[in-house]
Each structure stands twice: as C-alpha cells, then as structure tokens.
C-alpha cells in the first residue's frame, strides 16, 4: 500500500501495538531545556531509574537565560533568583545523570530548536521529542518531531519510547514564486490565517511543492516551526538535495556512514499514489507580507489590508474579534499601517537563524531606527549563529542602526527572562505567538517576518517591504 512520509516514519519507529490500541514508538533524539524537565527528572529519581539511552539526550538552558551576558557570565550571574533555580537545576540533573548539556557558558548554547540541527544532532528520519511545542521545527529535515508534556519527558527518559496514537495525514502544497519581500514566515502565517489555529488539530502536516523545493533549510524550519500554530504538532518536509547538503555541512558523520544514511534518507518521501486525509493547495505567488493584528496567530491579514470589523464578521467570530481588538488597543485604526510601534524583537526559534538575521540586517543597513521606537533587540538563536553573524559584520550593522545586539536565548518570545514588554507596549515580533500577555503582562504582539520587523524598526510603522 502506498505510504505518506508520515506513515513511513511511523512504521520505521513502531515497536509494538499495545493492548490499549496505542502504539509504542522508539525515540531517537530527546532535547531538554530547563523549564519542562525538572519535574521529569524528579519523577525518574523517585522511581530509582536512570535514562534509558544517555546519548539520545541533549540539553541546553534557553527559556530563562538573560540575553545580556558578556564574557564572564555564569549561572550565578542570573539576577532573577527563581529563574536561576531552574537553570541550576538543569545543570545539576545533567551532571547527576550524565546527560550532555551545552550550558550557559558554552559557545554552543542557544535555543534548543536552533542548536539541534546546527550541531548535527537532528538527522533526517529520526523521531525527535522535546518538552516544547516548537519541536515541530525539526520536521523540516524529514523527522517525526513533536512537542510533549513533562510526564512524557519522564517517560522518554525512562523508556526511550512514547505511547501515541497515530495522527491523520494532511498535505499542504505551496507552489509558485514569492513576491519580492515575501518570506517563509509570511507564507506560513497566510496558511494559518486560512485554516485557523485548529485547522491542523489531529494531523501531521506534510509541506511540499515548488516553493518548498526552492527554499533553504532555515526557511523550511520556520514553516515547520509554525505548524503547531496551525494546530498540527507534527510538520514535515521530505529530505532532498538541500537537506542532504545541510546535513553534510553540520553533522560529524564519517563518509561511509553518511553515504549509507543518504541512501536511506532518499526513501523518505511520500509514495506517488499515497493519499492524505486532507489536501490544501496554495498558489503562493499572490501572497503579500502578513502581519497579525489580534491575539491568535490566525488573526492575520495582508500588511496593507483592513483589520477585520466585528460588525461585518460572521456571528460566531464577532466576540473573539471584539475582545482581541480591545486587548490590542486597535482603537479606530483601520489598517495595521496606522499603528505606531514601541518595540521590535528579532529572535525566537521561528526566526533567529543566520538567514533571518541577514535579511533583517540588509534592510537596516545605513539606516536608523525611528525616534518613536523605544527599543529594538536582535537575539541570535545560538552561539554559532551569533559568531557567524559577527564574522559577517551583521552585529555592527544592527548596532549602527540603533538595535541592541544580544546573547542567545528564547528572550522576548515568551518573556521568561528580563526581556519583556511593559503593559500596552506594541511590539513588532518575529516570534510565533501573539497570545495575550505572551511577551509581558498586557503587552501587544504583532507577528511578522524578520524583514518586516526590521523595516518596522526603521519606520516606526508597518510598511511595504517589496
């Protein structure tokens, strides 16, 4: 029977079908960070267990870490005592159990979904889990990758497996050439606007099409990262030449092993006659830059379109639109281009990779942020991204334009560290969630591409990126 890529990955990792009807899947790679792991380690210790396969686990602190660190920084330098406890706890647990950690002083520390691929720990065909919903990012490499809860983190540590029920198959095909200034972030936001944040619930979404074929691994990671914002905990892209080139550069596999692996990776494609439970085909050539106006990623429009008016909306949407507009302080503004921004955040596991920083830097080169912008920060996704950007002089371009250049971490995507919005501040953000209070209590988040965020810093408002 013809199989989809998801079906093949499922079968390859299927240990057994349990009496309950669920399946036990083998987990190849487990990423850990400081926020969702302490209770799992505690559970493991209480049961007197040790990790099943130590080498499967890779840890790094990212959510809580300050992003103004400098050279002599260590764990003790964290001012927030409660955040410090979590970072220290991860360190203790990794030492206690012998798990490989890129700690806060490591040059390779960074957002777990950025460092995994760039250090070669993410390989095509793997099952990858992490106590973090944006684990879907790794699906860009043809991995069955998904976010899990803390109980499951404990389960994976203890058993190297996960109990799961099979998802349905959904196919999203993006064909066409993007307009100038339109990036993968715009494409995925557009999709979420079309199908909604529950559109992919219960499904694994496979992305394909001539657009996907044409883009880099960084851009593919942005798309799979945001699959969860469309409700799908799994996003997938079949490995191709671009994937294999990336792996060749980033993994430390010896040649014979790499070549053997490559033969297998080439089989990780959906069979010609396989069918999906849901199919969506989007011609991307007409898509404009997307910016969110509300408090859910599905509340998104073309950057120059009218913000929805609850009076003209379908009955069941009226109340949600009204509540979101009130929270966001939209007032009488008709378009996003009418709104004045206070802060700009370029970073997060969605858009903090080298390509994102290059695009943003290009847009601000020789310019300066608007007087009305209180703060514009650039937070590279990892130590490696930071070094690379500095080698290319991007840090100087940003700093000369009035941006603050930071150290790696999740930062203002969720504001667990000191990088937060103050109440009512409006932020142009390259992150993934515009939920109420996400970037700080009563803060107002507008999601957009790194290019659009950079231009918003310069102009103080959303503008035409083409």
């Amino acid at each position, binding site marked *: 029977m013809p199989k989809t890529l998801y079906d093949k990955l499922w079968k390859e990792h299927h*240990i057994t079908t*349990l009496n309950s*009807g669920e399946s*036990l899947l083998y987990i*190849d790679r487990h990423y850990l960070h400081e*926020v*969702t792991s*302490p*209770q799992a380690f*505690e559970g493991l210790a209480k*049961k007197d*267990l040790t990790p*099943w*396969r130590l*080498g499967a686990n890779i840890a790094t602190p990212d*959510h*809580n870490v300050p992003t103004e660190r400098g050279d002599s920084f260590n764990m003790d330098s964290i001012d927030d005592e*409660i*955040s410090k*406890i*979590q970072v220290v*706890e991860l360190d203790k647990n990794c030492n206690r159990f012998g798990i490989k950690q890129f700690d806060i002083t490591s040059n390779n520390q960074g957002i777990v979904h950025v460092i995994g691929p760039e250090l*070669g720990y993410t*390989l095509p065909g793997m099952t990858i889990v992490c*106590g*973090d*919903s944006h684990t879907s990012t790794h699906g860009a490499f043809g991995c069955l990758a*998904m*976010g*899990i*809860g*803390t*109980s499951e983190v404990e*389960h994976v540590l203890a*058993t190297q*497996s996960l*109990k799961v*029920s099979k*998802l349905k198959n959904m196919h999203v095909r993006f064909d066409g050439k993007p307009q100038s200034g339109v990036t993968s972030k715009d494409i995925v936001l557009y999709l979420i606007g079309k199908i909604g*944040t*529950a559109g992919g*619930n219960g499904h694994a979404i496979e992305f394909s099409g001539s657009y996907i074929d044409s883009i880099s691994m960084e851009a593919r990671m942005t798309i799979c990262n945001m699959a*969860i914002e469309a*409700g799908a*905990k799994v996003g997938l892209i079949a490995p191709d030449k671009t994937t294999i080139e990336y792996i060749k550069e980033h993994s*430390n596999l*010896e040649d014979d*092993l790499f070549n*053997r*692996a490559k033969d*297998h990776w080439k089989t990780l494609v959906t069979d010609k006659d396989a069918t999906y439970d849901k199919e969506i085909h989007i011609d991307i050539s007409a898509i404009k830059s997307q910016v969110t106006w509300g408090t*859910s990623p599905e509340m998104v429009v073309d950057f120059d379109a009218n913000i929805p008016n609850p009076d003209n909306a379908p009955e069941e949407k009226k109340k*949600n639109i009204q509540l979101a507009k009130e929270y966001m302080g939209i007032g009488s503004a008709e378009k996003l281009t009418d709104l004045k921004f206070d802060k700009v955040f370029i970073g997060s596991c969605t858009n903090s990779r080298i390509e994102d920083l290059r695009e943003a830097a290009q847009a601000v080169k020789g310019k300066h942020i608007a007087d009305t912008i209180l703060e514009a920060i650039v937070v590279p996704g990892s130590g490696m991204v930071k070094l690379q950007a500095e080698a290319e002089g991007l840090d100087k371009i940003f700093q000369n334009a009035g941006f603050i250049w930071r150290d790696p971490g999740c930062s203002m995507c*969720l504001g*667990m560290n000191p990088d937060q919005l103050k109440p009512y501040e409006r932020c142009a953000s390259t992150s993934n*969630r515009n*939920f*109420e*209070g*996400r970037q700080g209590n009563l803060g107002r988040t507008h999601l957009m591409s790194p290019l659009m965020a950079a231009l918003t810093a310069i102009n103080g408002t959303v503008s035409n990126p083409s």
Partner: protein
Amino acid sequence: MKLQGNELQINGIIASIDRDNIDTDQIIPTEYLKSIKKFGFEDYLFDGWRYLDDGKLGVTKDQRQINEKFVLNISPYDKATILLTRDNFGCGSSREHAVWALRDFGIKAVIASSFGDIFYNNCFKNGVLPIQLSKEQIEDLFKLSQDTIKEISVSLDAKKLSIGDIEYKFSVEDNLLERIIYGLDDVDITLQDKELIKDFESNRIKNKPWIFAND
C-alpha cells in the same frame, strides 16, 4: 492498581468562559513555569484574567488585586469543578503546567468543541477529563448555564454528562479514560515491555547506525 471509585462520577458547578482558542499561556502564564514543582499552581490559573495586577511565582491569591468580574472569582463559580469553553481549548505551548493549574484549582473536567492536541494528551496524565462535544451542544450548554447556577454531573464509565433534564453522551478512548479512573503510571506500564524496546533498539543500532553515531 486501586480503583478510586469516587472518580467514576464528577459532580459540581459548571463555570463558563465564552471564548475560542484559549491558549495555554492564558491558562497559566510563563512566569509560573519557573516552578520546579508539579503542584501548587491553583492561584495562578487564568492569571491574566483573574487578577488586575501582574503576578510573580510565590505571590499568593490573597496578596493580589482580584478582578471581581472574572467568573472564577465569583461565588459559587470559585468552587467550579467543570469548565465550559468553546473551540480549540489548550492550543499553543506543550506546558503540562496548564493541566496542573486546572487540577490544583479543582477543575476535574473541561468541556469544549475541540482541544489542542498536546494539552488533550496531558490532561489524562493528571486526572483531568477533556470532554469534546459538538459546537451545537456547546451552544446549548452555554444557554443552559447562563441564567441560573447549574450543577452538572459527569459519569466517566457511562461517558455521559447530565445538566438538569438534559443528557449528552460523549466519546473518549477507553485507554485514556482508564488512566483517569485508575490513575495509571505510564512509565511502570511501558517498562513491562522492556525486552521489546531492547530488541527494537538493537536492531536499529545495527540497521541505522548513524542515528547512534553521537551517543
């Protein structure tokens, strides 16, 4: 595996929040994810809506500025055991803290027309029952629970909820329901299949050695 008979039936007050897409950041904001404990989240449930001031981990309810208009601050809904909402409840982040906060507050069941996948899964590991009904049934329940305070009764074994004279059947996978009824621990159960996992792993090491190259 001891049967906790009292959990076969959930009775109590139903509180409603009339919104779609209530994400896990609303259920519990990131600030409280700094805790390294699995319990003690009751005061932080729906923090952004429940209080008028900005909170911190360790600052309890009695030290906060209460939003008197929020349903869970109004008697008798402050004792609610069942929560009624709209579509896609628990979307967003994978934080199990969202379920811990509901559980610690005393919520034993959440009724919605759909749920975020990861949240749905996390519920069953912590004794909270997510009940999925159709949008029409949800609309009816909102109408029913709007005017007068309603008590609701959920039978886990019969997969049925009753409010006044009305009854709704709901479906949920038996194996998931059993986790709630018996309070099963997945790690213990899976380790009974230890040998199967070992065999699978040995084969994988042989056939796909590159996966293990960094071990």
